[in-house]
C-alpha cells in the first residue's frame, strides 16, 4: 500500500477518535458514556500492541507461554469486588489522581515516596510506550510498499509524527481540567471504542486465517502435529516451567492493579462502584476472546512461512501474503488502536504523576504561592502538557536508539517486573496498618536495584555490546552473582528470576522495616484510614491527629490560588454548613485542614497539597504516644462510653453514699445534742427534788411536822442515790460507746456469775415478793468480763422485777450451749414488751409510750449499756418475739473467748 494512503488512513482514523472523544466530553452525563460496558472496555487498555502482536510471536516460538500474562488478570478479576472497590473508594474520597498519589498518601503524604513511585512508573512505562511505537513503526513498514526506503532521520520517520499526534491527542483531552482527579470521559470513550475495534479486527483475522486460509482449527492442529517441536509447544515443561508460570501469573496479577494505565482506567476513571460487578466477568471474557485464535494464527503462520522470524506480525503478513490488503489494513488499524489507547492512557497517567508528584512538589510550590489563580491553573496544565510531550518524545527516542533490536514481549515483561516493585507497599499497605513509609521506600529501592541488575542491565548490555559476557560470568566473574542465575537459581526464565529475587528482597525489606520502625503520626493516621476504609470518613473528618494553629483566612488564601475566589468561598461555605460551624469562623480546625488538602490534591497532588497547607499552618509535633492514645480512644469510643457510664453510675452511688454518711453525721450530731439534753434533764430532775426539799427543811419559820421532815429527808437520799447511779451509768455508757472501755476478760463460770447476780437483786425481789429461779445445775466455764456480765444480768433482772406484779411475779434465768456460743435468757411473767418496742428498747433514754404512768426509777441508759457490753463480747441481745404473759430477754456470748 502506498505510504501516503496509509498516512491518510491513519489521520482519518485519528480524526474519528478525536470526534468520539469530543462527543463524549460534550455529553458527559449520557448513558452512552457512563455504563459498565464502557468501563469494562476501557479496562481492555491492558491489551496493547504487546497482546495484539506479541502473543502470536510467543505462541509461535515457545507455545502457550503467552497465556500466564492473561491468567493473572483473570484470577484478579473476582477480587476486584473487594480490593478494587476499596481502592476506588479511598481514591474518590481523597481525590487521588495517580497510583503515586495513592501510595504516597497511604504512607502519610510522603513526598519522596510519591516521587519514587513516579520514577519507578517512568522506568516501567517508558520502554513500554516505546514498544508501542516500535509496533507502529514496524507494522507501518510492513504495510507500506516502499520497503526499500528506510530512513534514519527523525524528520523523515512517520512514527515520530504518529507519536506527536498521539501527544497532541493526550494533551488536548487529558488536560481539560486542572484537577487531575476529574474524569477524562473523552479519552475513556475513545479507548472503549478502540477496544471494540481491536478485538473485532483480531477476531476477524483469526476467523479469516483459521477458516478461510485453513480448514478450521483441527486442520491447523493436524498439520502442526507433524512439526518436530510440537510436543514442546503444547505442553508445560515440568516443575521448572511450572515455577515460571507461577511467577508470570503473579506478575500479571500485580500488573493489572499497578500499571499506571490500569490504575487510571480502573480506579480514577471509575464512575460507579457497581460497574465493577459487570467488569469482573466481562473483562475475563474479553481476554478469553482475545486469546482464542492466538495459537492457531501462530501455527498457521509457522506452517505458511516456515520461519518464526517475523512471527509477531503474522496477522499482517498472512493476509498480505494472500493479497488481501483490505484485511491487513483492518488488522493494522486494530493494532494501531491498541497502541493509541495504551500510549494515551499511559502518558496521561504518567504526566499527572510527573507533574503532581515530581515537578510541583520539588520545584514549583513557591511560585504557586505567589501567583494568581488563573495563572496557577495555566501553569499546572502546561506542566502536564509538557510532560505528555516529553514522555512520548523520550519514549520515541528510547525506541529509536534502543528497542529496535528487542522483542515486544521482552520489553513488556521488563516493564511488568519494574512496576511489580510497587506491589508490597501497595497491597500490604491496604490491609496492614503497620506498613511504614520507610519500609515502602526501602523495599522499592532494593527491589528496583535487583531488577536493574538481574534484568535491565544484562538486557541492555546484550543489546548494545552484542555479547553475553555479563550474563555468562556474572559481576567480576563471581558466579553466584550471575544476573540470570543469582545465588545459583538458574532454572527460571530471566523475567521470572528477576521477579522472584526482587520481590523476595522487596518484601523482606518492607516487612522488616515495618515491624522495626514506626511511622510518624500522620502516617499512622492515613494507614488507619486506608486499612479501615469503612470508617475512614469518620477518621478523616474527626481528623484525630492534628494539633496546631491555623487561620481560616490563610487557608482560604491558598485555596484561592488554585480554585479561584468563587470556588474557594463556595467550598468553605459548604464545609462550614456541613459541620454546622459559623461562617465567620476564625481558627481552622483539623477537619478544615484535611478538607483543604483534599481540595488541592486533585490539582497538585497530595504531597504538594500537604506542603502548601502546612505552609500556613503552625503544626505542632505530636508524639507517637499521643497519637496512639487518640487512635485507641477513637477505636474504643464505645467501650470508653460504657466505662464512662459505669464510672458515672459509681459516682452517683458514691455521692448518694456520701449523702447518707453526711446525713448520718448530721443525725449523729443531732443525737449527740439530744443525748446531752437528755442527760442534763435527767440530772436536773433529782437535783430539783433535792433543792426543793432542802429549802423547805431549812425554813426555820415553818414548823414542819416530823413525819413530813422524815419524808423530805428520805426523798433527798433517794434523789442523791439516783444522781450517783445516773452519773455512773453515763460514764459507763460514754466509755462503751466511744470504745474506751477495755473489757477485763477472764476464765469464769457462768453458773457462779448468775448466782452472784441473783443475790445482788435478791433484796428488791424479796421486798416485791417476786420469785427469782435459777434452773441451771451445771457449771460451765468460758471467757468473759465477769463484772460487766454481772452488770448485764443485774440490769436485766432489776428490769424484770420492775415490770413484775408483786407477789405473783416470777423470774427465770436459763442458759444453753450451742452454735459456738452460750445463750442466756431472763424471763419474767410481767406485763411484757409490746412488739413495736422491741427494736427500740435498747436505745438510750427510750421510754415506751405504753410505759406505766409512774416513771420507773431508771436512768434510761440501762439497756443501752447492756447492749454495748454484750456487743463488746461479740455477742447479741434481743427481746424474744411472740412471748405471751411476760418478756424474755436473751443475750449470747460466743465461745471464741473460751480459754482451753
Amino acid at each position, binding site marked *: 500500500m502506498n505510504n501516503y494512503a496509509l498516512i491518510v488512513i491513519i489521520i482519518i482514523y485519528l480524526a474519528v477518535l478525536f470526534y468520539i472523544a469530543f462527543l463524549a466530553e460534550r455529553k458527559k452525563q449520557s448513558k452512552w458514556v457512563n455504563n459498565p460496558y464502557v468501563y469494562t472496555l476501557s479496562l481492555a487498555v491492558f491489551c496493547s500492541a504487546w497482546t495484539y502482536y506479541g502473543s502470536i510471536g510467543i505462541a509461535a516460538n515457545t507455545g502457550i507461554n503467552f497465556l500466564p500474562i492473561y491468567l493473572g488478570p483473570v484470577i484478579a478479576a473476582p477480587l476486584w469486588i473487594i480490593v478494587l472497590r476499596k481502592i476506588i473508594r479511598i481514591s474518590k474520597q481523597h481525590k487521588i489522581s495517580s497510583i503515586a498519589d495513592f501510595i504516597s498518601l497511604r504512607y502519610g503524604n510522603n513526598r519522596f515516596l510519591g516521587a519514587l513511585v513516579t520514577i519507578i512508573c517512568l522506568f516501567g512505562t517508558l520502554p513500554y510506550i516505546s514498544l508501542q511505537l516500535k509496533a507502529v513503526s514496524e507494522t507501518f513498514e510492513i504495510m507500506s510498499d516502499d520497503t526499500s526506503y528506510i530512513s534514519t532521520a527523525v524528520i523523515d520517520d512517520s512514527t515520530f509524527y504518529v507519536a506527536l499526534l498521539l501527544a497532541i491527542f493526550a494533551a488536548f483531552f487529558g488536560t481539560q481540567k486542572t484537577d487531575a482527579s476529574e474524569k477524562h470521559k473523552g479519552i475513556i470513550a475513545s479507548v472503549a471504542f478502540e477496544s471494540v475495534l481491536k478485538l473485532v479486527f483480531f477476531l476477524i483475522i483469526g476467523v479469516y486465517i483459521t477458516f478461510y486460509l485453513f480448514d478450521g482449527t483441527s486442520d491447523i492442529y493436524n498439520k502442526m502435529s507433524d512439526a518436530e517441536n510440537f510436543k514442546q509447544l503444547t505442553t508445560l515443561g515440568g516443575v521448572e516451567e511450572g515455577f515460571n508460570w507461577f511467577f508470570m501469573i503473579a506478575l500479571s496479577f500485580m500488573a493489572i492493579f499497578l500499571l499506571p494505565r490500569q490504575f487510571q482506567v480502573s480506579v480514577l476513571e471509575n464512575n460507579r462502584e457497581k460497574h465493577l460487578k459487570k467488569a469482573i466477568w466481562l473483562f475475563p471474557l474479553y481476554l478469553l476472546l482475545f486469546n482464542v485464535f492466538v495459537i492457531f494464527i501462530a501455527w498457521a503462520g509457522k506452517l505458511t512461512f516456515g520461519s518464526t522470524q517475523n512471527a509477531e506480525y503474522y496477522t499482517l503478513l498472512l493476509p498480505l501474503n494472500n493479497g488481501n490488503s483490505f484485511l491487513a489494513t483492518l488488522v493494522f488499524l486494530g493494532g494501531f488502536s491498541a497502541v493509541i489507547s495504551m500510549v494515551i492512557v499511559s502518558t496521561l497517567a504518567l504526566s499527572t504523576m510527573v507533574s503532581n508528584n515530581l515537578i510541583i512538589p520539588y520545584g514549583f510550590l513557591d511560585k504557586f504561592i505567589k501567583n494568581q489563580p488563573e495563572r496557577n491553573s495555566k501553569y499546572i496544565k502546561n506542566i502536564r502538557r509538557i510532560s505528555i510531550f516529553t514522555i512520548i518524545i523520550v519514549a520515541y527516542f528510547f525506541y529509536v536508539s534502543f528497542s529496535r533490536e528487542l522483542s515486544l514481549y521482552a520489553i513488556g515483561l521488563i516493564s511488568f517486573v519494574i512496576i511489580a516493585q510497587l506491589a508490597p507497599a501497595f497491597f500490604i499497605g491496604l490491609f496492614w496498618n503497620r506498613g511504614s513509609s520507610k519500609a515502602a521506600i526501602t523495599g522499592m529501592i532494593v527491589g528496583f536495584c535487583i531488577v536493574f541488575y538481574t534484568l535491565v542491565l544484562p538486557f541492555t548490555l546484550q543489546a548494545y555490546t552484542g555479547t553475553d559476557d555479563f550474563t555468562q560470568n556474572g559481576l567480576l566473574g563471581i558466579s553466584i552473582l550471575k544476573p540470570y542465575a543469582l545465588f545459583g537459581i538458574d532454572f527460571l526464565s530471566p523475567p521470572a528470576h528477576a521477579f522472584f529475587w526482587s520481590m523476595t528482597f522487596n518484601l523482606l525489606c518492607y516487612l522488616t522495616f515495618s515491624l522495626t520502625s514506626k511511622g510518624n503520626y500522620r502516617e499512622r493516621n492515613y494507614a488507619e484510614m486506608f486499612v479501615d476504609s469503612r470508617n475512614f470518613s469518620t477518621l478523616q473528618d474527626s481528623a484525630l491527629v492534628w494539633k496546631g494553629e491555623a487561620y481560616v483566612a490563610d487557608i482560604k488564601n491558598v485555596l484561592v490560588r488554585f480554585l479561584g475566589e468563587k470556588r474557594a468561598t463556595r467550598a468553605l461555605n459548604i464545609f462550614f454548613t456541613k459541620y454546622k460551624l459559623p461562617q465567620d469562623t476564625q481558627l481552622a480546625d483539623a477537619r478544615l485542614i484535611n478538607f483543604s488538602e483534599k481540595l488541592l490534591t486533585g490539582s497538585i497532588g497530595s504531597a504538594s497539597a500537604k506542603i502548601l497547607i502546612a505552609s500556613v499552618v503552625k503544626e505542632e509535633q505530636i508524639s507517637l504516644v499521643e497519637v496512639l492514645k487518640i487512635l485507641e480512644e477513637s477505636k474504643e469510643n464505645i467501650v470508653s462510653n460504657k466505662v464512662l457510664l459505669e464510672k458515672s453510675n459509681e459516682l452517683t452511688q458514691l455521692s448518694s453514699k456520701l449523702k447518707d454518711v453526711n446525713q448520718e453525721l448530721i443525725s449523729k450530731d443531732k443525737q449527740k445534742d439530744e443525748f446531752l439534753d437528755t442527760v442534763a434533764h435527767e440530772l436536773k430532775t433529782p437535783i*430539783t427534788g433535792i*433543792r*426543793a426539799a432542802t*429549802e423547805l427543811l431549812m425554813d426555820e419559820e415553818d414548823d414542819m411536822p416530823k413525819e413530813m421532815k422524815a419524808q423530805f429527808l428520805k426523798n433527798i437520799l433517794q434523789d442523791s442515790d439516783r444522781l450517783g447511779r445516773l452519773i455512773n451509768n453515763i460514764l459507763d455508757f460514754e466509755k462503751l460507746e466511744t470504745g474506751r472501755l477495755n473489757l477485763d476478760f477472764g476464765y469464769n463460770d457462768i453458773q457462779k456469775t448468775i448466782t452472784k447476780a441473783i443475790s445482788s437483786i435478791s433484796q428488791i425481789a424479796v421486798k416485791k415478793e417476786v420469785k427469782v429461779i435459777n434452773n441451771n445445775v451445771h457449771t460451765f466455764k468460758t471467757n468473759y468480763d465477769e463484772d460487766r456480765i454481772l452488770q448485764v444480768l443485774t440490769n436485766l433482772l432489776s428490769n424484770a422485777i420492775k415490770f413484775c406484779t408483786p407477789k405473783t411475779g416470777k423470774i427465770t434465768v436459763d442458759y444453753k450451749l450451742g452454735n459456738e456460743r452460750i445463750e442466756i435468757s431472763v424471763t419474767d411473767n410481767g406485763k411484757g414488751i409490746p412488739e413495736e418496742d422491741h427494736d427500740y428498747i435498747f436505745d438510750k433514754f427510750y421510754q415506751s409510750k405504753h410505759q406505766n404512768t409512774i*416513771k420507773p426509777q431508771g436512768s434510761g441508759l440501762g439497756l443501752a449499756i447492756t447492749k454495748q457490753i454484750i456487743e463488746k463480747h461479740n455477742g447479741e441481745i434481743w427481746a424474744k418475739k411472740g412471748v405471751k404473759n411476760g418478756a424474755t430477754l436473751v443475750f449470747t456470748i460466743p465461745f471464741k473467748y473460751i480459754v482451753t
Partner: protein
Amino acid sequence: MKKKILIVDDEPNIVMSLEYTFKKQDFEVFIARDGSEALEILKHHIPNVVLLDIMMPNVDGYQTLKQIKNTDSLKDTKVVFLTAKNKASDIEKGLKLGADKYLTKPFSVKKLVSEIMELLA
C-alpha cells in the same frame, strides 16, 4: 375563796415539795402525773393556775397547754411552765404557745411562790 392550783409532773419527789409549799400558801392543790390526767381533772375543776412540766409520758406539757388554751372555761386560768428545759428556743416556744410564765428547774421555792403570787395578783 381558796385559790386553786393544779400541779402536773411525773416526778413524785418534786410533786411532794410543791404540794407542801402551795398547801402552806392556802391553795387548794390538785395533782396530775401527766397531761392526760391533768386534762381529766380540768374537766371538773377550774384552777387559778396550772404548774406544768413539759417532759412527761403520754401527753406532754405542750399538748396540755394547747388543750387548755382551746378550752373556753379555762380562759382565766394561768399556765406556768416549770421545766428542766432551759434553752432559749424552748422558752420562746413555750411562751409562744401562750404560757403566762416560764420557770426552770431546779427552782427556788420562795421565788416560785412569789412568781405565782405576782401572777395571780
